[in-house]
């Protein structure tokens, strides 16, 4: 069991590639997430963030390259790797005919945990995410933000060492978002590693100590947040790297006066 101070990176992708038809969704991606870091993965829509994270967490088999979690090769040790990872996928369904409590319990039991431990942790997690009152409601009746939170609870129940969260703040209200950030910061301070993908540059700049910019399946920049952004803001640096910013006020017919 590697401890948090181990020199091995929490997550390391080496020359990972994935092709969907004609589109190269990941083109020799190299990414090193230091252990104990709060890592942000930013990129425009369709940049390959979800593809990269899916390959890093054993959900999508790469065409080439290797992925390691604390030095353990993910695709040859799937079960052991998944025990160390807590994953929140974006754009997948949940077993939403279960109640919130049932769903979190289900995730814990699937990990092979004891019933008592699962019960205690599920209660803790629902409380942590302000979902106690909704614990008996079917997840299908949850709002988008509550659904995100219960999915996050499912990712945490087995006390993973590395959290990989795809768009964890999307459609979450500001108060819940701040609470989630506190939880994640606490997790990092205790030695865990968090990797989030996001569109919100301000948020990533404030929240993450490391960041990688990804576009068209390639890593354009990677390092500590301060190194990547330099003197400008992360948003300006991002636009500079990715390009595609337009200047102008749109066509004349769109102007009211």
């Amino acid at each position: 069991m590697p401890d948090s101070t181990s020199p091995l990176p929490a997550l390391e992708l080496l020359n990972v590639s994935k092709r969907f038809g004609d589109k190269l969704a990941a083109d020799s991606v190299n990414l090193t997430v230091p252990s104990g870091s709060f890592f942000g993965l930013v990129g425009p829509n369709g940049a390959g963030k979800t593809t990269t994270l899916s390959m890093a967490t054993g959900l999508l088999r790469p065409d080439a390259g290797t992925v390691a979690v604390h030095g353990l090769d993910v695709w040859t040790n799937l079960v052991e790797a998944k025990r160390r990872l807590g994953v929140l996928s974006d754009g997948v369904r949940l077993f939403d005919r279960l109640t919130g409590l049932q769903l979190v319990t289900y995730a814990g039991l699937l990990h092979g945990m004891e019933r008592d431990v699962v019960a205690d942790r599920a209660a803790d997690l629902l409380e942590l995410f302000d979902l106690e009152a909704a614990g008996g409601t079917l997840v299908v009746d949850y709002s988008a933000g509550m659904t995100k939170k219960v999915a996050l609870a499912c990712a945490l129940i087995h006390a993973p060492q590395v959290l990989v969260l795809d768009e964890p703040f999307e459609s979450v209200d500001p108060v819940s978002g701040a609470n989630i950030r506190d939880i994640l910061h606490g997790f990092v301070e205790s030695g865990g590693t968090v990797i989030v993908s996001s569109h919100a540059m301000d948020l990533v700049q404030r929240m993450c100590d490391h960041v990688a910019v990804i576009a068209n399946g390639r890593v354009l920049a990677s390092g500590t947040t301060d190194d990547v952004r330099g003197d400008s803001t992360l948003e300006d640096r991002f636009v500079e790297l990715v390009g595609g910013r337009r200047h102008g006020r749109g066509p004349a017919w769109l102007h009211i006066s």
Partner: protein
Amino acid sequence: MVAHLVRLRFRLLLNGLTRNPWQALAVILGTVYGLSLFLIAAGGLFALSFAPAELGRTASVLGGAVLVLGWTILPLLSSGIDETVDPARLSIFPIPINTLVLALGVSGMVGVPGIVTTLTALATALTWWASPFAVVAAIVTGFIGAATCVIGSRMLAALTVRISSGRRAREAKTVLVLIPLILLGPAILGVTALFRELSDIFPMVASVLAWTPLGAIWAVPGDLALGNAGAAVAHAAIGVATLAISLAIWRWALDRALEKPASAQSSERTTRGLGLFRFFPASPSGAVAARALTYWLRDPRYTQSLISVPLVPALVFFYSGASGDLTGLLFVGPIVAVLLGMSIYTDVSYDNTAFSLHLHTGVSGRDDRWGRVLGLGSFAVPVTVILTVASVWVSNSWERLPGLLGIALGLLLTGLALSSLVSGRFAFSVPAPGENPFKARPGGGFTLMLSMFASWTALAILALPEMILALLGFAIDSPALGWSALAIGLGLGAALLVVGVRWGGAILDERGADLLVQLQRQK
């Protein structure tokens, strides 16, 4: 605008087809099938022209009424409603309601079923080629009749959208639709039995139907050929009024639907505690079983499989009850066993991308397979045994019990084995969670049908030993053979189940991530 919306329909269909070649093949086969149906119907209608005019009138009224009924009722029950152009998605565009009604009506008419129906309806003119008046009338009424079919189906679809705004209401409706479905089989059997005995009743039924919205319009050419101008006018009036009223109701429902788009309403009902998770062992397979059984109770898509349990005995009882011989009931146990055993054939496809939780947690393929088998088995085994014992009891043939139990349990276990093997390997196009369980994706069921056929064949072969033993035992009245059939059925079935679960589990361990990619594509 109308032409634009109709083009949109074809564009959507075409784009869907280029994504999935199997679906394209299914649509082509459907077209060929539809056209051959049309040719048969046209031939029949032409042949009718040589029969007495009364017969032609009876046939066209009955056929037309069945057509209208089929169009309005069947989409709700079986194949689902083609929502290639979903009115709700158009609600943000400023399209006048009348234009929308016209456009949706026309796009309904130009689909394969619409074209075949229209051609067939127009072909009624062939029956009346001897009478020029009736030919003209048949072409006009044929067109009105075909329009009634299409508009009728749209009207019911729009009305049910209105009824089913909330999720719970929608699911309740599904169950409500299922009840008539259960009764429909016996009812059809009863009616056909009646017809077989009293075939001279047809003209009478036709003359009654001719005064109802279902049959009125189809009676007009016959009336004219027979020289009943008064009746023709009356029937035409009823037919046109039917179309006009359907159109008005559809327009109203559509208007309401656009103003108040159906939105998900959250319900207040809550469940305390863990529910079924308390009753299953706290292990990965136990958790999967609890989850699967919860879905059997809560998900309307599973209800569809569950209705076979009351449906099969009811059908068989009505069928064999008519002839007074109750031995047919002995088939009930094995049939239900096959249906239940194969009901988890698309289980992972029903999970849809929620299956990713199983991948996140790294649950082993074998635990996944066992859990699903356990969840279903917890009620499928008792149901199969109870139905088998009950059928033996009712038909008073206790000496056949061991052999019959051998067949039924053997089929159930073997079916579970095949389901466990296949559902972890292939993602099928099935309704997504929360979707109408009857919703059809054009041609989507074709691959499923193909692989189902292969699996049913495999099931029949794998269960041969116990079936041969039991049938031989029935033939020569040997209880020993019956008991050995039971032993073989249980032993071989259990062995196959272990093999199916392990093999399917190994496939799932190996290819789970690839399966998720397939599931994501289905979404």
